């Protein structure tokens, strides 16, 4: 192997082995609880001050892309569930949309299927944001919101389990349709859940959002200016907290989102600076409220305009074999964490893709961490990392 291919690794070793006399190397992770999984951060510190952060990824690498090149499109859907395992519905929705557009069946789908997809995706978005908020609280030392968030998330998990048969990894959204129609009574249960959940959101706001200690720990911490956020490819709540109104549900207006009424919350720097950790937290809280609005509208349409009929077959359009001509396509969708993209490169006379690349939002959002954490305190690093809300299943793929 040529020397220049391993040059960067030797440079890194040299940096670690020859640190200055006032510096110290500290390993944070991979078993550190506040890294939200198996992320290892190597810190070069001077006392309490972090001089440099070197992230080490790959502890959860499961070769998603290699698997996707070995099997047909439909069989890959369960693997996409395991990318961002806290928002499996959104992952498979993005993947399925890409395949459907290449097949040209995306505008033939019945409205009921589209509304069911959006409904379960938004339920999953709430579940994902609840985890983000709850674990962020516990990172900073607030234990109660964590329990409350998990209690409310459990209702969503039970509902989605009722629909799909699985608690977290659903395999519910298929190419050309969905696995089964919603179980009888699901819409009513959604309504009950929304009625139960709305007061809980107010409680959560009182407990955490305007909590003085929480604000002291998060305001003015990890300020991410919008130009840096764009340059580092940050998306989702990360980008919106920096003041950019960029939501792919509106930009690309895919599925039935153009027919639904919701706002895009952006960061405003209410208690600190624009783009600080508190803003990122607040955008997620506001997005939950918007998702609740979307769910209400979906349930309304699903019970009235597109109500259940006995002869409705949610698998009518599911192709027996996905036959595509050689082409390339990049599909993107708004996940709870940001822009999830799939780049397909297909080949002729085969239902197996040549290449599938998953562009995980967490991967890009995490890459800004070394930039954000130069010259901060170690305790603040936890606050910043928590506010990025990464899922290692998606970072490592």
């Amino acid at each position: 192997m040529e020397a220049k291919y391993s040059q960067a690794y030797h440079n890194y070793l040299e940096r670690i082995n020859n640190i200055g006399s006032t510096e110290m190397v500290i390993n944070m992770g991979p078993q550190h609880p506040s890294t939200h999984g198996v992320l290892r951060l190597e810190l070069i510190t001077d006392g309490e001050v972090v001089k440099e952060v070197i992230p080490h990824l790959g502890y959860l690498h499961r070769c998603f892309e290699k698997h996707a090149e070995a099997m047909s499109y439909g069989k890959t859907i369960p693997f996409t569930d395991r990318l961002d395992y806290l928002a499996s519905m959104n992952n498979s929705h993005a993947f399925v949309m890409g395949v459907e557009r290449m097949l040209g069946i995306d505008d033939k789908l019945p409205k009921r299927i589209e509304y069911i997809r959006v409904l379960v995706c938004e339920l999953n978005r709430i579940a994902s944001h609840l985890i983000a908020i709850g674990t962020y609280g516990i990172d900073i030392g607030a234990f109660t919101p964590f329990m409350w968030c998990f209690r409310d998330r459990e209702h969503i998990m039970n509902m989605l389990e009722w629909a799909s048969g699985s608690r977290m990894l659903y395999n519910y959204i298929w190419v050309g349709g969905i696995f089964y129609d919603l179980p009888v009574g699901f819409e009513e249960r959604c309504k009950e859940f929304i009625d139960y959940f709305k007061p809980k959101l107010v409680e959560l706001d009182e407990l955490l959002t305007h909590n003085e200690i929480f604000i002291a720990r998060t305001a003015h911490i990890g300020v991410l200016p919008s130009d840096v956020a764009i340059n580092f490819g940050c998306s989702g709540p990360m980008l919106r907290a920096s003041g950019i109104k960029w939501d792919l549900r509106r930009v690309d207006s895919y599925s039935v989102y153009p027919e639904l009424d919701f706002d895009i919350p952006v960061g405003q720097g209410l208690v600190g600076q624009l783009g600080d950790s508190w803003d990122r937290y607040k955008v997620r809280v506001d997005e939950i409220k918007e998702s609740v609005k979307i769910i209400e509208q979906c349930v309304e349409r699903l019970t009235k305009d597109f109500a259940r009929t006995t002869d409705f077959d949610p698998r009518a359009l599911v192709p027996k074999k996905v036959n595509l001509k050689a082409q390339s396509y990049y599909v993107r969708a708004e996940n709870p964490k940001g822009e999830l993209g799939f780049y397909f490169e297909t080949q002729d006379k085969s239902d197996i893709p040549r290449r599938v690349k998953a562009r995980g939002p967490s991967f890009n959002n995490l890459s800004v961490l070394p930039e954000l954490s130069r010259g901060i305190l170690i305790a603040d690093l936890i606050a910043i990392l928590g506010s990025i809300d990464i899922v290692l299943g998606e970072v490592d793929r």
Partner: protein
Amino acid sequence: MINDLCERLNRNFGEDSATIINEGLQQTILVNKDKLKDICLWLRDTNGFYFDFLSSITAVDYFPKNEFAVVYNLSSIVYQYQLTLKVLLPNGRALNDLPEIDSVSAIWRTADWHEREAFDLMGIFFVGHPDLRRILLPDDWIGFPLRKDYTEAEMYRGISTTS
């Protein structure tokens, strides 16, 4: 939009620096390898395009042809455009002679990790990258697993990988 863009690229950077290829729904601009860095900087900074957001970098292996490709998916936050650039890299697949291409990590910082991933899994060498280490696999891994002709090593650090 894309025809106009391609014409302007050819006018500014010389003939044959960009050609449009039709591959289904999304059109792709095939970019000359030597002009890539200049074109990317121009695309990012030119009024009317402002492709300031690099979504992803994908490396593709065209086995059994001795050819690789690097694909750049750009989007413009201001104008809400999307664009796909593609660069073809013929190469003989030897482990001591990787395909080489200019790094764009100075233009979009997000390219840093994407290029490290392409180096790690597909073995594309990005000239001018500040820190081109493996990112997902261990640093002592041999070979590039996403290549179609990759064969798994039988042992890794004295542990059998097959069993």
